[in-house]
């Protein structure tokens, strides 16, 4: 009974948890609920992975409410989405374990229960995006997670928090609407909203212009979403790599528009990296870096070869680990000093060596230094490009990692080689549990840079599955 309903539980449990957390109204109890639910999520995700592996065709399909796809909403767990589910849920569990101290310092006591409610809602949304096989359902989950994120932002102390929440709401909604617009066009062209179904039908479309418009809208919409959530999104950004959407992308790229997707990714990689260099706020810098990193992922998809796709998928995981480490390290710093401007971080490395050490390791990962997970992704991507004989593409990948050297190097230099300012000097050590989880993730960056069975191994198999579906 339970095992056959696991796909639904994966999303329903956090929803229920959110309601429960809202009802108890007491911060610590709400945290406990969030903690229990968040740690149940990885368990379910791993159970799903086991099911997927035992399933003969490698897909667990779950018809929500008994309505069979393509008419009804399908929850579809294949190797790729199981991978994303594990990623999101494990990260979510780690973040919630890390959170209480940071939450207590940044949010008024009577509002803390709301924080955990919204956190669980956001998780539900992200997991939903990962598990759903329906393009429109993905939009609903996108908005569930976005709306809860707006609230999370507005919960901050500052009156400016409300203002930024409003601005995020405006632009985020535009992004989401662009996404629906794209999905609508796809629907008009193919007559289906089930993404696996769309992928099957897209090949028959003669006129590619509406298809291009649809993909452009979807990509722009998702990019808007991704770029705009610098705050509180220590959670991996499932928007960017909803596996079902990836399937659709893959299908369309395989047939017609690979080059456009490729150019878009290339533009994202270069432009966003350059913009990241000029950010004064460290969170914004990391956010733009995310856009660039997502460019790597779409690039891997656009290559449509075993190696390239493996690189794209493995980078989903690797990027999540690296960015989570970076944001958690920044979280530790903000917790103790309240500083987010890079210039004001002078000397922080000497005051908080472990935290900044984690930051440096993750930053080196973004650059792609060997011995970190970033190297693994970059290796596959460059190899994928070279296999196709696309020299210019390999060149662009390495150029964008050069820009990463600049923006990561800037932080390192300020943090370690400037005299600490008074505010930094007085800063205490970050709390143990925050530091511990940051360091665990930083260690994972190095360990997984050597032991790639879990990451590249699964990614390679997922790539095989996806490519097999294409032919």
């Amino acid at each position, binding site marked *: 009974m339970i095992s056959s309903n696991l796909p639904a539980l994966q999303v329903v449990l956090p929803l229920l948890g959110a309601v429960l957390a809202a009802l108890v109204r007491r911060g610590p109890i709400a945290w406990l609920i969030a903690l229990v639910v968040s740690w149940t999520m990885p368990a379910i995700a791993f159970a799903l992975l086991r099911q997927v592996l035992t399933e003969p065709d490698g897909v667990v399909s779950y018809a929500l409410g008994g309505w069979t796809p393509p008419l009804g909403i399908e929850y579809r767990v294949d190797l790729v989405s199981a991978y994303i589910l594990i990623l999101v849920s494990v990260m979510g569990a780690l973040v919630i374990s890390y959170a209480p101290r940071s939450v207590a310092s940044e949010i008024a006591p009577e509002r803390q229960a709301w924080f955990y409610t919204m956190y669980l809602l956001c998780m539900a949304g992200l997991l939903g995006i990962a598990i759903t096989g329906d393009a429109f359902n993905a939009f609903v989950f996108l908005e569930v997670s976005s709306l809860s994120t707006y609230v999370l932002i507005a919960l901050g102390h500052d009156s400016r928090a409300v203002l930024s929440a409003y601005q995020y709401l405006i632009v985020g909604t535009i992004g989401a609407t662009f996404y629906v617009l794209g999905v609508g066009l796809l629907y008009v062209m193919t007559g289906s909203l089930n993404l696996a179904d769309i992928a099957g039908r897209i090949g028959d479309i003669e006129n590619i212009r509406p298809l291009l418009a649809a993909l452009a809208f979807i990509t722009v919409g998702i990019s808007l979403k991704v770029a705009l959530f610098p705050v509180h999104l220590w959670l991996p950004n499932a928007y960017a790599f909803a596996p079902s959407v990836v399937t659709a992308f893959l299908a369309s790229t395989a047939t017609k528009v690979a080059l456009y997707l490729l150019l878009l990714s290339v533009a994202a990689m270069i432009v966003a990296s350059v913009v990241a260099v000029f950010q004064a706020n460290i969170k914004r810098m990391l956010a733009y870096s995310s856009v660039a990193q997502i460019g790597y992922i779409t690039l891997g998809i656009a290559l449509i070869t075993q190696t390239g796709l493996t690189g794209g998928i493995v980078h989903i995981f690797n990027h999540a680990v690296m960015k989570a480490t970076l944001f958690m390290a920044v979280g530790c710093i903000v917790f103790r000093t309240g500083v987010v401007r890079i210039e004001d971080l002078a000397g922080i490395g000497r005051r908080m060596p472990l935290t900044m050490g984690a930051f440096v390791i993750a930053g*080196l990962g973004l*650059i*792609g*230094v*060997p*011995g970190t997970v970033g190297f*693994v992704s*970059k*290796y596959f991507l*460059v*190899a994928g490009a*070279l*296999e196709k004989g696309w020299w210019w593409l*390999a*060149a662009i990948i*390495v*150029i964008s*990692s*050069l820009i990463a*050297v*600049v923006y990561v*190097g800037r932080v390192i*230099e300020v943090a*370690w*080689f*400037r*005299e600490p300012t008074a505010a930094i000097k007085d800063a205490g050590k970050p709390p143990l549990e925050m530091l511990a989880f940051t360091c665990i993730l930083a260690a994972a960056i190095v360990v997984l*840079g*050597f*032991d*790639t069975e879990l990451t*590249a*191994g699964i990614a390679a198999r997922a790539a095989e599955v996806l490519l097999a579906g294409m032919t």
Partner: protein
Amino acid sequence: MSADSLIVLALLLPTAGAGLIAMTGRNPNLRETVTIVTSLALFATVMGVLTAVLSGAEPRTTPVEIFAGVEFGFSVEPLGMIFAVVASGLWIANSIYSIGYMRGNDEPRQTSFYVCFAIAIAATIGVAFAANLFTLFLFYEILTLSTYPLVAHKANAGAMAGGRIYLLMLLGTSMALLLPAIIWTGIVAGTLDFIPGGILDGKLGSTALGLLLALYIFGIGKAAVMPVHYWLPAAMVAPTPVSALLHAVAVVKAGVFTVLKVIVYVFGIDLLSATGASEWLVFVAAFSLLMASLVALTRNNLKARLAYSTVSQLAYVVLGAALATQAAIIGSGMQIVMHATGKITLFFCAGAIAVATRKTEISDMVGIGRRMPVTMFAFLIGSLSIIGLPPFGGTWSKWWLGIGAVDAGHAWVVAVLMVSSLLNVAYLLPIVARGYFLPPPEAKSGEPVAVTEAPAACVIPLCITAALCIVLFFAAGEVEALLAQMGMVAPTDITATLAKGEPDGP
């Protein structure tokens, strides 16, 4: 303990030393003891490996597969062995010297200095013993990163700017050019292992080979081939022991070592001489060699002049690699050793002068030889070894390079070598001459000048390294014998090797 586990020990020792140094940071005397003991233990370990290698063994660790085609593992061959011996041996001298220099100059943040230093040595050993391109690349990057804090150590505006250039150029070239080169090699050859005779034979056309070689040469920024040499003078802002580390022990040596390793074990010298894919590099290296010497002439800051001298001397190694004959490769390997001892002596002297008199500009060093006779004498020895006069070690590397050039049919290279030696004379010896023969401006005529040497911890190491320059002249045979063991041609190619009358690899 078997030689295989000694390799691991050689890597762990400096790493553990770094940890211990960090922990004992509160007590400087204890911390310095840890540094010295670690360096001695490392040297002993490396000597242990050397004994095994000399007895014909080829120690290696079981490789760990990272993902398909990319492995992490170590194996020791003669070239890496020599590099490891040089690095670990000079680390001892450098450690003692650092203590004198850092205390004499009252530098801040000494603990982090020694920690980074130990990590840099661990990375150097990793580079020396790497069994494949990935492992080598990994330690190459660790070396860059661990030396960056050393370069920016002073943390003032100049040091930050120098450090920025250092990091950007080394990390930049390696990520932008070396990484694609490695991946390309992996795709084409299907392996990244260092195999005698190379792994690219018959896999690429000569144009593609030339291009790949260019990616390697300019990607290995540490080898400082013009125009990617620029970081080296910029890194002169670092404290002198760091400059010694950069120039003699670790960084640039890791660069040229990597170049040699790639030429011998990835391309294979037979392939290069057959296709002529490295012809262009002979010219680039020769240009770099002369140009850097000329620039050195114009520099008034002593360390800057020595830096350009290093650029020029490194070009010798690259030149030998580009010539791709056995004699030239032996010359290159020897040049790594000889230049290391010579240049570390010169830098030690420059540092000693700075500690004792605070002088950094050559024009201010008139009469310095009378104040610091021992230091200046060591400087003279180091200079003569760099120039390549007997009875100093530098003689032999130039000798073998010359033979290699003739073998490769590039007799004009011999002329380049001679001109360069003359230029070396022109930019090094006047310093000594003016130091000894002119009176210091502040001294009254007729009165003897008081001798004010740097602290003993500075002077003793530079005497040792100067003595080494002479010892190496007589011990060059051993080095040559070891280098000749290098598997330069594929083992299957034995008949061809026998016909040439060269000793075969183990």
